[in-house]
């Protein structure tokens, strides 16, 4: 399918998400806000800290955007409607998203500033908490589809969506995806009011605009991943496939953003403790459960 169309879909998705983010933060629902905010952001001065690691400082926002876009490239909007169809798609999503952490550590280290540094290294700790909870539910999803291809995984849910066959994996993946996208209550690397913006604190003007855009793309990509892996992808009645994917993805993204309004931020140690003492054992239970159901069904 043509690249420009996919790009246009991504841009409009991000725009709608920006509207939703504004709503989740302030309670105001306005279609023009992202344009106004974006223009204001771009017209601001782009300051550079006094003694930065200039190379990493400039690279980090671009890498964050690239990682989120690469992960989105292998996720289908409808059968055949995707940038690249890889046989290892589900693994590739994970590989691309690993560079989100690299970008944030870079952005934290580069400005030579305390809050940014703490934010960056914090996200490395956050990765230790969420990464297994991304991979293990994905394993169970791939088990059912008997394939790592994202198209096969979505198609494998024709009879029953994965959210119903493996609800435990769905919840764990959803929470881990929120932690990966560092949306509240998992916004430890930016932590407004505590780290004064953390990794984003030293960025201004165009660079901050790119970082914010990248974060929105990341949220959208992860919402799309949840839809493809657990909510049947393009499957649905009446509407065409791509429309179902769009509706589901925006709904998931809105819920991801809305949750932060009602839940207080977790502390890093609590996040790690919950992830390792409860999350990973539950993810193992999920894999065993899916294995048993698959064996029972195939008999």
């Amino acid at each position, binding site marked *: 399918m043509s690249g420009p169309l996919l790009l246009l879909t991504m841009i409009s998705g991000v725009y709608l998400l920006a509207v939703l983010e504004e709503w989740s933060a302030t309670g105001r629902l306005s279609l023009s806000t992202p344009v106004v905010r974006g223009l204001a952001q771009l017209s601001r001065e782009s300051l550079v800290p006094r*003694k930065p*690691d200039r*190379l*990493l400082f400039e690279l980090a926002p671009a890498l964050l955007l690239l990682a989120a876009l690469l992960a989105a490239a292998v996720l289908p909007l409808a059968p055949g409607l995707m940038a690249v169809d*890889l*046989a*290892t798609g589900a*693994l*590739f999503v*994970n*590989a*691309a998203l*690993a*560079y989100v*952490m*690299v970008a944030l*550590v*870079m952005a934290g*280290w580069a400005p*030579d500033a305390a809050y940014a540094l703490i934010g960056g*290294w914090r996200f*490395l700790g956050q*990765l230790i908490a969420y*990464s297994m909870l991304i991979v293990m539910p994905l394993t169970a999803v791939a088990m059912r589809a008997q*394939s*790592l*291809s994202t198209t096969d995984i979505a198609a494998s849910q024709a009879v029953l969506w994965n959210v119903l066959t493996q609800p435990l994996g769905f919840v764990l993946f959803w929470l881990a995806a929120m932690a990966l996208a560092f949306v509240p209550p998992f916004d430890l690397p930016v932590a407004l009011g505590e780290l004064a913006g953390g990794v984003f604190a030293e960025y201004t003007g165009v660079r901050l605009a790119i970082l914010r855009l990248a974060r929105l793309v990341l949220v959208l990509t992860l919402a799309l991943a949840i839809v493809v892996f657990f909510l049947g992808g393009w499957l649905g009645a009446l509407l065409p496939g791509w429309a179902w994917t769009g509706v589901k993805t925006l709904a998931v993204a809105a819920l991801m953003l809305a949750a932060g309004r009602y839940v207080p931020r977790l502390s890093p140690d609590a996040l790690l403790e919950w992830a390792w003492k409860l999350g990973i054992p539950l993810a193992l239970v999920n894999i065993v459960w899916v294995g048993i159901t698959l064996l029972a069904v195939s008999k």
Partner: protein
Amino acid sequence: MIAAPGQTVALVVFGASALGFGVAVFRTKSMVRSALALLGSMSAVGGLFLALETEFLGVLQLMMMATEMTIMAIFMVMFMMDPGGLGQMDMTHQKRAAVTAGVVGGLIAVALSALPSWAAVVVAAPAPSVQLHDLGIELMSRSMLIFETAGLAILVAMIVATTIALAEKQP
């Protein structure tokens, strides 16, 4: 096997960037830059795998190295006295021995690539999904003992490390 022109270009580009980043690892005094340059080199090797039509290995390489190299970076920052490289501290030692070891190691690697008679090159690489399937069968049959042993060893190391890190109980 005759490579497509694009494939040859990708091989040269990824190979050259793997070497370039490899040199950059030793040309900087900043621990974080050094670790990230190593990540660049390792990612380029991942790109090489992709260019050689081994999709799973390429994607796995890209995924594993991102986390490993960044975790290495934080340990380097914790243990080194001048992690930012701003103090211009000289951190090299035993230069002659290191150069000798490097040259000898390099020569051995070149010899290993040239000396043995490698088996015939496959005409066409199997489809990525077939490669995945074959790899799964291999891991669950012939290579199972090797991987299980390695997994057990790593698990033991993790338990031991955690035990050592726990606070001392005695007064």
